[in-house]
């Protein structure tokens, strides 16, 4: 009977990876690479660094699959976000301060040139202001506005309670509203 790998959930794939299944690892990587890349990019603002971080995270998982403990970790994505975030924070400690790229990436190619330029400038300002926030506030923003993460999941990743996370978000947004409204 042919196995439909696409139907296997993350927990099943991880159990197979722990038995040495490279195919299961491949399915997991293809399923989640882009999501974790986007998160890493928000932290480091550098494509190559974000790719390296995601690669390191997955290779660590392959090398030591026993790190995933289903009895301790409720959801793979929540746990793996923590792994990726820690690698991002390590990267930031070792490297130069985050450089906001001059050319902001745009996906909306249907914009008129003047609209595209205005949107790029707006994005550049936003990224610069986010980079200037205290680290915990920045982390809260990056996690809460990453796709698929609830506030509770973000709080779990940051190892704070929900109220603490909401407080961080509130302070971050207050600062950004003031600075971007000028």
């Amino acid at each position: 009977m042919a196995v439909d790998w696409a139907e296997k959930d993350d927990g099943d794939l991880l159990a197979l990876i722990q038995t040495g299944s490279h195919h299961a690892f491949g399915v997991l990587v293809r399923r989640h690479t882009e999501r974790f890349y986007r998160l890493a990019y928000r932290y480091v603002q550098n494509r190559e660094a974000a790719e390296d971080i995601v690669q390191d995270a997955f290779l660590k998982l392959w090398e030591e699959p026993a790190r995933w403990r289903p009895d301790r970790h409720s959801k793979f994505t929540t746990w793996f976000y923590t792994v990726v975030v820690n690698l991002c924070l390590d990267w930031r400690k070792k490297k130069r301060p985050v450089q906001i790229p001059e050319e902001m990436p745009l996906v909306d190619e249907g914009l008129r040139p003047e609209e595209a330029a205005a949107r790029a400038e707006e994005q550049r300002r936003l990224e610069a202001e986010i980079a200037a926030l205290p680290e915990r506030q920045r982390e809260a923003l990056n996690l809460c506005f990453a796709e698929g993460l609830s506030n509770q999941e973000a709080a779990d990743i940051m190892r704070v309670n929900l109220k603490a996370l909401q407080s961080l978000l509130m302070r971050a947004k207050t600062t950004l509203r003031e600075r971007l409204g000028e």
Partner: protein
Amino acid sequence: MSEMSDEKLEQMLRARRVAPPSTDLAERIILKAQAIPQVQALPLGQSLRQIFGEFHLPKPAYVLAGTLIIGFVLGFSDPFDKVPIDRGGSTSAQAFLYVEEDTL
């Protein structure tokens, strides 16, 4: 100074763009993993057996006998110089320490 509305800010935060990753990022990761051996976690019992296997302990009877022998040897040896008996029979700590001094 006007403050941006919360709605506008949230819209901007959700619209944050990222530079797209390399199209072959996932495949590169998968390929690299093929060259990396996995470290398999051992059950606790097996790990402990491996650790204790590094220590080659002799049988308990030999350890006991060896300890007794060492104890006897230490007990009968006298690492310090003997104190002369003709110091008025004194066996005080002072006499023991000041061996070189003449008795008054």
